[in-house]
């Protein structure tokens, strides 16, 4: 890598926080307390999608590590060829499983990548909402604690 390239690529133009008013069309995904502060996966799904019946699908490609290097920073990624309108990640045994929900407008690809915290070994599930149905892919991610590095 060119040693200067990162800095140049990140040389973004800053808009001061106060100037957010300059983007009157700013639309946020509308964080929902009911969906996020909820210990039950089913209830969160109901809140987000109005339904909680899910079907595992081979077309929901979830990428997550077998063993998390560090539970505070677990890289996860989901991709699907389905036409999705929303994508969510659940971490089953976190106090509140729902970690993120993304809205995918027309013209945006059905893929989301982020980093999540995991308190302990548990299942990570990606939920894709497509044509009024929910499709999932799950994977168990081991979280180990202790040792020299962790």
């Amino acid at each position: 890598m060119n040693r200067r390239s990162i800095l140049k690529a990140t040389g973004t133009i800053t808009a001061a926080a106060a100037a957010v008013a300059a983007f009157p069309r700013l639309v946020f995904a509308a964080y929902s307390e009911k969906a996020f502060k909820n210990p039950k996966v089913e209830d969160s799904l109901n809140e987000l999608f109005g339904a909680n019946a899910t079907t595992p699908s081979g077309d929901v490609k979830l990428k997550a590590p077998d063993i998390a290097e560090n539970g505070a920073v677990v890289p996860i990624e989901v991709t699907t060829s389905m036409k999705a309108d929303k994508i969510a990640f659940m971490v089953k045994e976190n106090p509140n499983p729902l970690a993120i929900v993304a809205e995918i407008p027309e013209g945006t690809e059905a893929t989301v990548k982020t980093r999540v915290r995991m308190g302990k070994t548990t299942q990570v599930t990606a939920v894709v909402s497509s044509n009024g149905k929910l499709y999932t892919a799950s994977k168990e991610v081991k979280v180990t604690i202790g040792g020299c590095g962790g």
Partner: protein
Amino acid sequence: MSSIRIKAKERKGSVNVKTLMKHNMETGLRKDKSGKKIPEHWITDVTAESGGKVVFTAAFNTSISKDPYLAFAFAGKKGDSLTISWKDNTGATDSAETVIK
């Protein structure tokens, strides 16, 4: 300096976006040195706009890692601008704009 870093690259009509937002993302579970709980403080919403159109929005829980990372892709072109903004649970917001390469 903005809290938001953006890398946006177009390839074959698809714009790959990677963004890192500097934010402590306090879970509300951590304690400070005196044993007092640090109140939760986290980004709840993120939105991305390009060409006068919302191209991506997401809502976060406190379980998203410190300095949240988000990557997504949308149909767009070189030279267009891309604006990413966040809002946290205290009502604070930040915004940054970049030109798609």
